[in-house]
């Protein structure tokens, strides 16, 4: 039992949770504050993952060079997605982003791209230099069920520092006059235009910055594992949206807490169900089914949330009253 709860606590602070949180902060900027429907945050994460890994493996770039390549590619992707759609109604961006992210996933997994992207097998061995930056001496740290290697400690510190950093950047931006303009665009872009603001440029900036967060998240996500094309499907994007809505779309902290709750609950329900199956308490499930059932439980939880707290956990109830 102890182990089940310590697994869940571990999930709360896992680097993967942090990576999802950063990507979700990006779509909070897109959707929660600018009103942009980006259903392709997975593609920005893929650009981060592949850009970083390919620049390191195939082009032998140093760590920061590889990061810079990913960032550059991310900005290019934002322009490619934004230029044809941001002058149109908001649903066009939704369609284009979802299509583009699926296309990107198919392209990187084709065998003809294999020399560069590894095709269906993906990529690995690109994190050596990152871990070389680790100042923490070799050893195991922590206590009880919470012990980590020096690499795991380093990864957690870097990931969560970045979460805090991006949350602060978002908080500063949305409280600034720039944030006022994008919130105005979310409400009614023609009104903002009539007041002399270049709405298109603001939407593009928001798309770029939120996309960059997705890209950084993509790099963090693959550092402790390998790059797998299968990870960048629509499911990834919808998990991010789930986290965002869980916490509250128009909040800064909501996406972070949303990500923690999401992974914490998944881990908890998984462990509890498995324990139940192993002890014979739950007889109508097999261990293989548990992996799927837990997503159903999270889905059910989300439905209950939407019914009883539609503004998300941290959202402002007052804001929602006016939408109806």
């Amino acid at each position, binding site marked *: 039992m102890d182990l089940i709860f310590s697994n869940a606590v571990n999930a709360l602070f896992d680097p993967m949770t942090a990576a999802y949180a950063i990507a979700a902060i990006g779509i909070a900027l897109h959707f929660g504050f600018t009103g942009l429907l980006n259903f392709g945050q997975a593609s920005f994460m893929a650009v981060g993952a592949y850009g970083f890994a390919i620049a390191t493996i195939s082009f032998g770039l140093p760590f920061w060079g590889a990061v810079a390549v990913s960032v550059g590619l991310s900005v290019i992707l934002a322009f490619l997605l934004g230029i044809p759609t941001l002058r149109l109604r908001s649903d066009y961006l939704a369609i284009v982003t979802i299509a583009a992210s699926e296309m990107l996933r198919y392209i990187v997994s084709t065998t003809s791209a294999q020399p560069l992207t590894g095709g269906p097998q993906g990529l690995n061995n690109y994190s050596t230099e990152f871990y070389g930056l680790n100042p923490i001496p070799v050893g195991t740290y922590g206590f009880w069920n919470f012990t980590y290697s020096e690499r795991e400690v380093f990864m957690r510190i870097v990931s969560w520092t970045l979460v805090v950093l991006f949350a602060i950047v978002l908080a500063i931006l949305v409280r600034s006059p720039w*944030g*006022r303009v994008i919130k105005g665009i*979310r409400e009614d872009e023609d*009104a*903002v*235009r009539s007041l002399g603001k270049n709405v298109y440029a603001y939407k593009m900036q928001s798309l770029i910055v939120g996309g960059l967060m997705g890209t950084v998240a993509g790099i963090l996500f693959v550092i402790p594992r390998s790059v797998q094309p299968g990870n960048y499907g629509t499911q990834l994007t919808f998990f991010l949206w789930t986290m965002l809505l869980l916490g509250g779309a128009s909040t800064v902290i909501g996406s972070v807490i949303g990500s923690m709750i999401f992974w914490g609950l998944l881990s908890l329900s998984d462990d509890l169900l498995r324990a139940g199956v192993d002890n014979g308490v739950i007889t109508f499930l097999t261990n293989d089914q548990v992996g799927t059932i837990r997503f159903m439980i999270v889905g059910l939880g989300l439905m209950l949330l939407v019914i009883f707290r539609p503004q998300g956990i941290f959202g402002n109830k007052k804001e929602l009253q006016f939408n109806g």
Partner: protein
Amino acid sequence: MANEIAKGPATPGVAKHDPILIVDNVRRQFGGLVAVDVEHLEIPRGMITALIGPNGAGKTTFFNLLTGFDTPDTGSWTFNGTKLSGVPSYKVARMGMVRTFQLTKSLNLLTVLENMRLGAQRQPGESIFAALFKPLWAKNEKAITVRAEELLKRFKLDAKSEDFAASLSGGQRKLLEMARALMTEPKMVMLDEPMAGVNPALTQSLLEHVKGLKDQGMSVLFVEHDMHMVRNISDWVIVMAEGKVVAEGPPNEVMKNPAVIDAYLGAHHDSDLGADKIAKGE
């Protein structure tokens, strides 16, 4: 009155002594319907000009065209000596020509005060890089807030400044939209039915506000169906029907013009409501 503003007799398209806006051959067609077809029109500077006409006459479409919210099939126009054809709407606003909308566009989940601040121009904090460093824009923000609060007081919205705009009544939203437009410090204000849905008690103060704009040196062009208001505050009246300017002149003369009465009452509809008829009517 007519010769104080116009150079000749008050016929459609008459030249003005000091026009702020000059329109030539602006035409907009929606499928088979010609919504706007204005051959020549001049709007006098520093005056209150009313644009009237029956429903569907093309007044709102004309506003949209002039302010860059819609693109005409043909035509050109100059504002304050600058050619505006093809200029995007946000640049039009920056040049000093600001408009409000017939269907009020309040930014609901922004507070009343934030709505107002958004109207301000040249706030460096609206650039994404400067936004990150508050000292770069805090001073401007203070000045903007002072100006916004003054305007809110004038429009009797100061008690609401911290409320969401969504919580305002329809009439209060009209007031907010107008006040917000003034935050841009415009040279010309274009109001699309500022009185629609505003209660009579408020109408009087809104009339005073519009007159006040003129006193501050702004030019006003407004669309309105309330003839009482048109008569009361406008220096000049332009009448549109079926996309064309069918009459213009000082309010008292225009109201007597048979072409105007026809346009409103629908007599001789579709047949002979043309420029010839008006010329004869003069």
